[in-house]
């Protein structure tokens, strides 16, 4: 069954907002999604009814807060097909989740010359942590190139994977929208003796996620791009890996015992969650999962494919050669992220003009500077869609785009 767009828009209070006297046309969900009433209420409810610190509290409020935190963990585990709740580590965001793997598994298992394989379309969050290990440990960073359509070029994959210890790849590009062949890469990585990490930040909000089906060893994603609050992200990893990994940050919550001589760590997952966790945010993420489950992730993806197809058709029919849309041309091969260049006008200027019509797009390098270099530009304009967007939003973008001509086309 198709999504009921009117009902969904009514679920998101921010959709009532006007910008510069115009209806809000929000096309920046790849940066962050809006939050449904259900999620906002979950945050308020936590602070109004059972705000207290989790674990070790013997009073009623603390019991309720602890249960809510652990219930959120269970919801996330079920949402991504994890076999155990304890495989869900709460982090600040996907960036912290990837850094956690680099800092713990990486430091314990990698040494000089050990290859880590990433791709040219990664977000800086899946580049810089490995550059840091290159500087610290002397690992070797290898790059899977992309082809002219924005797909990974796997021609030399065997050579790139030779001796590799870890392959770390975005499931969906935040710039091109490309959906990468994660299972194929995971199988190839395992055959080469490497582990597989997936940056699912642009995948989990939009497609049904099954970590076992992905064949991954680590999966990182963030809450705020999937209707959840900011400040909460997730690392999923196989239990045996988590058991063997050293802790990340040191402090309260992550210990079993502390003496003057040293400490011993708490069990997984708490071993990786030092300090008071983002309790309200985790509860909010649990509510976001409830919301998406209620919509049905198959339906969410169907809507995305249909709307992406409509956007690709509308923009190319309207502007022809005046617009270049990066990435795969088939909606089924991509997410709802459209990076484009319009008449050679700089993306900042395009975004500035669109803002006047209440159309929110992002302009810049999208934290993917190596990819920008491959594309031969320093910036793109990016429109990205989610469950609350419909064809009228695409039309508003298409209508407002030509307003830039008045300033920049002589």
């Amino acid at each position: 069954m198709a999504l009921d767009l009117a009902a969904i828009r009514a679920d998101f209070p921010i959709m009532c907002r006007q910008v510069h006297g115009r209806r809000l046309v929000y096309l920046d969900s790849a940066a962050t999604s809006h939050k449904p009433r259900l999620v906002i209420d979950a945050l308020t409810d936590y602070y109004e009814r059972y705000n207290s610190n989790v674990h070790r509290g013997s009073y009623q409020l603390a019991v309720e807060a602890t249960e809510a935190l652990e219930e959120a963990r269970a919801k996330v585990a079920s949402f991504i097909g994890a076999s155990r709740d304890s495989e869900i580590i709460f982090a600040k965001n996907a960036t912290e989740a990837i850094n956690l793997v680099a800092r713990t598994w990486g430091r314990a298992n990698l040494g000089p010359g050990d290859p880590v394989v990433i791709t040219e379309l990664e977000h800086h969050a899946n580049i810089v942590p490995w550059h840091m290990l290159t500087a610290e440990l002397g690992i070797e960073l290898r790059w899977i190139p992309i082809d002219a359509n924005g797909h990974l070029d796997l021609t030399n994959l065997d050579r790139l994977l030779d001796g590799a210890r870890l392959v770390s790849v975005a499931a969906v590009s935040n710039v091109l929208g490309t959906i990468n062949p994660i299972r194929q890469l995971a199988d190839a990585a395992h055959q080469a003796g490497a582990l597989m990490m997936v940056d699912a930040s642009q995948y989990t909000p939009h497609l049904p996620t099954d970590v076992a089906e992905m064949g991954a060893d680590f999966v990182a994603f963030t809450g705020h791009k999937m209707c959840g609050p900011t400040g909460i992200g997730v690392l999923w990893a196989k239990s045996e890996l988590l058991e063997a990994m050293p802790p990340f940050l040191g402090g309260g919550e992550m210990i079993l015992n502390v003496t003057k001589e040293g400490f011993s760590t708490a069990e997984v997952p708490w071993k990786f969650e030092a300090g008071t966790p983002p309790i309200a945010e985790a509860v909010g993420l649990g509510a976001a999962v409830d919301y998406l489950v209620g919509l049905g992730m198959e339906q969410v993806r169907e809507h995305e494919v249909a709307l992406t197809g409509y956007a690709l058709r509308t923009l190319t029919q309207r502007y022809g050669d005046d617009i270049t849309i990066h990435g795969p041309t088939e909606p089924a091969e991509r997410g709802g992220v459209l990076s484009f260049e319009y008449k050679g006008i700089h993306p900042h200027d395009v975004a500035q003009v669109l803002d006047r019509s209440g159309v929110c797009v992002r302009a810049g390098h999208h934290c993917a500077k190596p990819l920008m270099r491959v594309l031969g530009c320093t910036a793109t304009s990016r429109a990205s869609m989610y469950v609350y967007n419909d064809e009228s939003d695409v039309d508003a973008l298409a209508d407002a785009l030509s307003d830039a001509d008045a300033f920049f086309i002589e």
Partner: protein
Amino acid sequence: MPDLEDLYREIILDHYRNPRNRGELDTPPAVRAEGFNPLCGDEVIVYVRLANGVIDDIKVGGQGCSISQASASMMSATVIGRTTEELHRLNRAFKSMMSIEPDPDDPPPINGNGADIKLGDLEALKGVVKFPVRIKCATLSWHTLTQALEEAQATA
């Protein structure tokens, strides 16, 4: 919202379409500095050659939005032939127009606070202040020029 016409003044668009002093200079005798706006990837490259404390020649390269590139072009046209002392006063006056507090590391004003110096064409960038996100685009070339001059002084 403020009018886009305040931001995209005709003189700014003219500098964007027909940038002045575009190119490179031999280093040495010129010095080269690169400036990046980490938010958006705009980049400005400034080559500057000094002779007896005067900006003898300046060339600008890089790529970015209309505001960053026009501002770089306007800056190059304004500072050529000026003494470094005048340039510091211009820099202060420009930043003040952009509502930016003087940097404690900026050289102190020698004659007044720079308010007396005429900004000329640069005044056209005043509208940028109404679009706070774009202030960094307008000031990028000035930061880069300051960097180049520091380099020149360090190697002198």
